């Protein structure tokens, strides 16, 4: 098994006719992902890389019974495109763009919850189940098939980690980019149950960072509901306070809320292994697999 994307995925690419959309559709196809339809308003009736393009997600859903959508659309249009996907009954919507307004994400987060849709991202590389399928732009060559689950707020820290894992011969089950924004569609807590249930995942790696309280909430959830070992890395210990570090979500408020220390303390109390660095993640994984 694995979850979110695999050999049964029937993927829609929204924004398929754009430069990034086309490039990554080809990459995804080469990796084995079944891309069944593309959507770009006003480009319906055309074809990209053998994939039929429609004007609306609704039309693509009717014709192809898709079960997931990935959005290669600029941040300005993300709200509209994700709204369309959610309202058209796509059960899994993965968003990529960096720079989506927070108020747009607030609305989307709740809309997705209300409609029972799994919304991933934005500011995310997408989701990959190595050896099966990927939806997003991640450099798939550095991933390998195996039994470690990884979810990450940062793309680069995740790359670094899976690269170290691969070189050590340790593969991954499913890797989820929850994304670096202040308000993600799905949080660590939303994704954890999938890892817990997945018979192909033995160990869970959670790559967090300063800002917000997703790691603290994850700690509470893990304590109650997760039996598999969890390793966590919190990046940004030495970042200055009240300064955005690039990810819109990675900011420690002047009173210290969202600091690495507070996150690590809560995670440790929940029995989570705390890694000091990506290299340290590898050291701990080796003791667990």
């Amino acid at each position, binding site marked *: 098994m694995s979850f979110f994307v695999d050999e049964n995925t029937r993927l829609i690419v929204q924004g398929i006719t754009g430069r990034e959309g086309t490039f990554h559709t080809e990459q995804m196809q080469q990796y084995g992902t079944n891309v069944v339809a593309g959507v770009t308003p006003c480009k319906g009736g055309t074809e990209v890389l053998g994939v039929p393009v429609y004007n609306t997600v609704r039309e693509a859903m009717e014709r192809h019974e898709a079960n997931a959508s990935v959005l290669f659309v600029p941040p300005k249009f993300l709200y509209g495109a994700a709204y369309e996907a959610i309202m058209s009954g796509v059960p899994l919507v993965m968003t990529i763009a*960096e720079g989506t307004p927070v108020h747009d994400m607030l609305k989307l987060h709740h809309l997705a919850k209300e409609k029972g849709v799994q919304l991933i991202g934005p500011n995310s590389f997408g989701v990959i189940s190595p050896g099966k399928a990927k939806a997003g732009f991640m450099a798939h060559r550095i991933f390998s098939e195996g039994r470690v689950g990884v979810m990450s707020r940062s793309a680069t820290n995740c790359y670094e980690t899976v690269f170290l894992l691969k070189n050590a011969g340790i593969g991954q089950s499913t890797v989820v980019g929850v994304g670096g924004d202040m308000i993600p569609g799905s949080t660590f807590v939303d994704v954890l149950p999938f890892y817990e249930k997945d018979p192909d995942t033995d160990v869970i790696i959670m790559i967090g960072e300063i800002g917000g309280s997703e790691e603290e909430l994850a700690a509470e959830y893990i304590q109650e509901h997760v039996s598999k070992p969890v390793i966590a890395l919190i*990046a940004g210990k030495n*970042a200055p306070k009240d300064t955005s570090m690039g990810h819109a979500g990675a900011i420690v408020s002047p*009173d210290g809320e969202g600091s690495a220390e507070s996150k690590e303390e809560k995670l440790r109390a929940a029995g989570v292994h705390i890694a000091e660095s990506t290299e340290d993640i590898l050291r701990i994984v080796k003791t667990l697999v």
Partner: protein
Amino acid sequence: MKLLEYKAHEVFHEYEVPSIKGFTVSTPEELEQADGKLDYPVVIKAQVQTGNRGKAGGIKFAENREQLLKQGAEILGMSIKGLEVKRIFITEKVDIDKEMYLSFTMDRKTKLGVLIFSPEGGVDINEIVEKNPEKVAKVILPAGNEIDDFILQYVIDKTGLHQSYHDEFKNICKKLYRMYVRYDCLLAEINPLVITAEGQLKALDGKVDIDDNALYRHPNIREFRDEITENPLVLQARGFDFLYIPIKDRGNIGVISNGSGMIMSSIDLISKRGMEVTCALDLGGGATADRIQEALKIVASNPQVDTVFINIFGGITRCDEIAEGVKQSIAEIDTNRLVIRLEGTNKEKGLQIIRNIGGNIELVDGLYEGVDALAEGMEK
């Protein structure tokens, strides 16, 4: 983007949130013209992006023209915590009966808006909560563009606001919330919200923080951001769509990377080895050689920086583009050391280009080897 006080007042005004009258002055000539615009006494306030300006002498009162010109000239151009005062905000001086606190912000746990009101205000909200937690009303708001009356009624009941102010208070809350939503605010705060001697509610001072990602919807704020950005390197970097982050006044290392996460990890590892990063630059994804050479020049032009660490794990970003950028800028930068780590897309191509540049570029294989190399260099 945190607005300066005068800009916050402009935004309040736009949404008809009652606030005190005032205008700004940024040159001695404008100061000469300031007399007569408001009735005396007036308050003169330095507009700088830092707190505690009152203690630093950045807030003064004037009873007449002479005082206004004298005090105004003193504040305009003075330095507060290293920041030059380029603009002063001159406002009416209101007689205050009571200072309160009101804000709308975002609760990251529930992903909803939250209203915070306290009948005691004037100081930092954390201080208020610490002193009188029972007097503070904090209400999570259901998602929506308007705020319901019964929510405000609950806030009033909980805090015991006098009945004669109920209508005005609800009115201000509704307007401020509308502004919070439509201006893409992360924070819309009135502190203090005062009751004047005449019994009116008014915003005396405000803090407004607007989502940087939404500035395309607010061109006036985008303009304001560039206007008040003090650090020329931040501005230069922004011109190329990079994020330049000043980290510490001390330190000699500048870090360039292709993502926020990698920057934070690099800083963490370098700091752990007892070295100090003074600035970092985030290339984002997919930077081309032309832009990369500018990034390197910007970081190298920081006089504190004598060592640059380029740490790339390329997905969308291609290592050969990075290497080309280094090649194009190498003649124009004068840092002592340049340590480069390339991994990911087109790594071999990139390494070959760097090797051909020659010179004393230190190529390292991996993030950890890079940090080791930095540490060894420092010991020498």
